[in-house]
């Protein structure tokens, strides 16, 4: 087993803190995306507190693993995770989306160290990750490249151009993670533009495909371990998540894609999130 019970507990505790920070920062910002960030809190916590080879004090360290966030609108979860991991002070989170902040509404590499790239316009992250992975292989660099994408983003042709390239070049040092939360802006993904069978699409493009519960820390860590052990192919992990995870009023509701909670709602949500600490795991046992 790649991750101990004590580690899982710590990661879950961090995920709970990250969720609370997301709510707080969105309220302070007065705009931004809620469902996606909450849904990806467990995956981000697993990466920054266990999987990634990184150093918050040296964000430009050459041999760090690269994490490319393609669906830039969920960046509140990345900012919150980075702050809790020690990249910058937690209180800076409250500057999200404000004039002069390093925490832009969509992530900008040139403003905050550790972001790896600028995104927001969907569909171009996998290509950039592929460029990094290919370059690393050329130079015999051992670091790994991870690309986080959303499911709505799979509509974009650019994703499939990249998927074809990665498959053709067998970039096994690249692992993609798809936030499969089944929502996008106009509704459920399967009603806007059906993606299924997503698994066989990636398989047909030459990828090894894993489906995991995106709220099960152990399963996430195990899936990444499996991806690292495979040298013939790139791996994509389809992380099945609940949009808005942790706040029952937001969960599964696509209308929470792009709006922040009000101050009153936030008070209720934060209470619910804090009472959930420790219970998150139980649901998936």
């Amino acid at each position: 087993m790649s991750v101990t019970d004590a580690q899982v507990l710590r990661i879950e505790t961090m995920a709970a803190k990250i969720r609370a920070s997301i709510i707080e920062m969105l309220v302070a910002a007065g705009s931004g995306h809620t469902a996606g960030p909450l849904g990806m809190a467990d995956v981000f916590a697993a990466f920054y507190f266990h999987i990634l080879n990184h150093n918050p004090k040296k964000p430009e360290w050459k041999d760090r693993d690269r994490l490319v966030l393609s669906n830039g609108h969920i960046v509140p979860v990345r900012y919150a995770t980075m702050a809790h991991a020690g990249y910058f002070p937690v209180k800076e989170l409250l500057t999200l989306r404000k004039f002069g902040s390093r925490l832009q509404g969509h992530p900008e590499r040139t403003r905050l160290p550790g972001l790896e790239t600028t995104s927001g316009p969907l569909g171009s992250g996998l290509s950039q990750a592929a460029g990094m992975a290919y370059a690393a292989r050329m130079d015999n660099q051992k670091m790994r490249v991870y690309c986080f994408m959303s499911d709505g983003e799979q509509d974009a042709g650019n994703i499939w151009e990249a998927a074809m390239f990665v498959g053709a070049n067998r970039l096994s040092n690249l692992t993609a993670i798809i936030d499969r939360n089944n929502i996008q802006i106009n509704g459920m993904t399967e009603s806007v533009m059906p993606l299924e069978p997503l698994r066989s699409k990636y398989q047909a493009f030459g990828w090894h495909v894993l489906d995991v519960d995106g709220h099960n820390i152990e399963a996430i860590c195990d899936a990444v371990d499996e991806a690292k052990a495979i040298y013939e192919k790139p791996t994509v992990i389809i992380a099945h998540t609940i949009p808005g995870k942790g706040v029952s009023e937001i969960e599964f509701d696509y209308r929470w894609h792009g709006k922040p909670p009000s101050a009153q709602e936030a008070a209720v949500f934060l209470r619910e999130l804090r009472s959930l600490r420790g219970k998150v795991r139980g649901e998936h046992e």
Partner: protein
Amino acid sequence: MPQRNVPLRKHKDEKERATRDGFGDALLSLGESDPRVIVLCADLAESTRTLAFKEKYPDRYIEVGVAEQNLAALASGFAAMGKVPFVASYAAFSPGRNYEQIRTTIALNRQKVIIAGMHAGISVGPDGATHQMLEDLGLMCMLPNMTVINPADALEARKATLAAAMHDGPVYLRFSRETSPNVTTERTPFVLGKANLLLDAAKPDVAIVATGTLVSQALIAAKALANDFAVTVLNVHTLKPLDIPGILKQAERAGAVVTVEEHQLRGGFGSAVAQCLGTFAPMPLELVGVSDRFGQSGTPSELLTEYGLSAAYIAAAARKAYHRKRDA
């Protein structure tokens, strides 16, 4: 100098709307009047104001998902079969993402597709630079066969959309997310390619030629200058074809010009006016616009100030143009 942007006085029963709202209104009437009209949307129905059309005419609303390249080229195909397709997305993605598809399959191919670019300009605010499209007017004006319209308020946006549907050829319409004061009325004429003089003066000293929702800031600036010298304000809603006679007329009356746009200065509206004046009537010219920078997160009003686009900066540019003319 930076000062808060003062909104224009509103009529008492008139609520402020965004230009995208005028687009939504026009789509509904077009749905009724022209069965050839269809709407293609890339997962942004609510914010592009195509949702009402979708609900009223579900059979003529086509959802393409987050796929702007497909959006543009599909529309070309629909147009080839006699439909009148409107494609709606954010300007950052359409024409930002799908420029080549627009260039070849719509402009060069001369298909009548109407491209609606929403959330254009810096006033998008907190979303930041990735979503603040400041290059769309230049990109679209460079394309042969393309007509480009940048309405100043919601009323004009509605008229512009109706005019685009009647026009024989592809059209780009630019819209803002933020509400803005009305600078026109229901009765203001809208003729494609013909600029409207909104503020006249008997003996003008400076002509402000403005485009888009910043026209309201130009009018505020003109008011602030009223005691110093005489200013005219020309609303140039059509950037292509540019109303060269209309612009030259006001420029020559005044002898000094200020251009105003929520767009990069290089390759934008100011450049087009400079080209026109440089060719036909060289004179002092000051350009207000974004000077070779990307945007950033902030409130619309913070950003208009940071990027030098608000009324105070327009007034300062007019003073400069006035003095340059006087000292020449």
